[in-house]
């Protein structure tokens, strides 16, 4: 699914500003990444730094920091979690976030209260799709994918 060129995947979970996506894994962890909207706003991403695995991150404390030529800021976090793993491939080649934002995950986290509670604060499916489109329209966002 796409809107203004911004890819949307209805099976994923999103925050209400569509900055990050989360996916539930079989082992109870959650995989977290940037949305197409976020990577487009950032532009070519030059550096990604993730909180060290084992670090607890309460809601509001970023999972990672992103630097591009024109934007610097957090990969925000919306639930109480512990960093389990960073995607080393993305850390070495951050431009992957611009090329495949839904494949190039950033971190896997262990939600402290379990995945159900964590995902209950996120949006998914049709509700998320409506919000995703609304964000693109509100901020006049058009997505572009990076190329190698």
């Amino acid at each position, binding site marked *: 699914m796409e809107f203004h060129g911004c890819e949307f995947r209805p099976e994923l979970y999103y925050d209400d500003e569509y900055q990050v996506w989360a996916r539930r894994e079989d082992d109870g962890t959650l995989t977290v990444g940037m949305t197409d909207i976020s990577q487009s706003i950032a532009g070519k991403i030059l550096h990604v*730094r993730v909180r060290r695995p084992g670090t607890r991150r309460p809601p509001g404390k970023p999972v990672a920091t992103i630097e591009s030529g024109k934007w610097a800021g957090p990969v925000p976090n919306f639930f109480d979690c512990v960093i389990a793993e960073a995607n080393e491939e993305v850390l070495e080649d951050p431009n992957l976030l611009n090329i495949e934002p839904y494949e190039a995950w950033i971190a896997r986290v262990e939600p402290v209260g379990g995945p159900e509670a964590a995902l209950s604060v996120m949006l998914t499916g049709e509700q998320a799709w409506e919000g995703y489109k609304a964000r693109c329209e509100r901020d006049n966002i058009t997505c572009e994918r990076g190329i190698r």
Partner: protein
Amino acid sequence: MEKHFVDHEEQSVVIVMTSGPSTPQRCATPFYLGALLSSMDADVKIFFTMEGVRLMEPGVAENMAAMEGGKRIIEFIRDAKTAGVKFYVCRPAMPGYKMEEGNLIPEVTATASAGDLADLILTSDRLLFF
């Protein structure tokens, strides 16, 4: 891989911003750096004084860029605000630029006195001037 991990403890950082419209090339980096520090868990405050106060005047940062054709300064300011940076405007500096307290951009956290800046300087972990 080590360089890719963030390990810092929470710290407070004060950025004193004295640059303004006469030196636009100096007016993007402090906000970029502030956003980055904030996203690394630092408590970041930017204190605008001298010509820096003019960046908080409506219409000024909207019409400035650090480089020709580049991203507008107001967007850097908003990115920093979104990342959690707080903005304080020096009240005693404002009359020199014919600015009034009631006419500041909405991103401003508060106006403040020189004494407030002195307190920030003496209590922060890190201090930067631009």
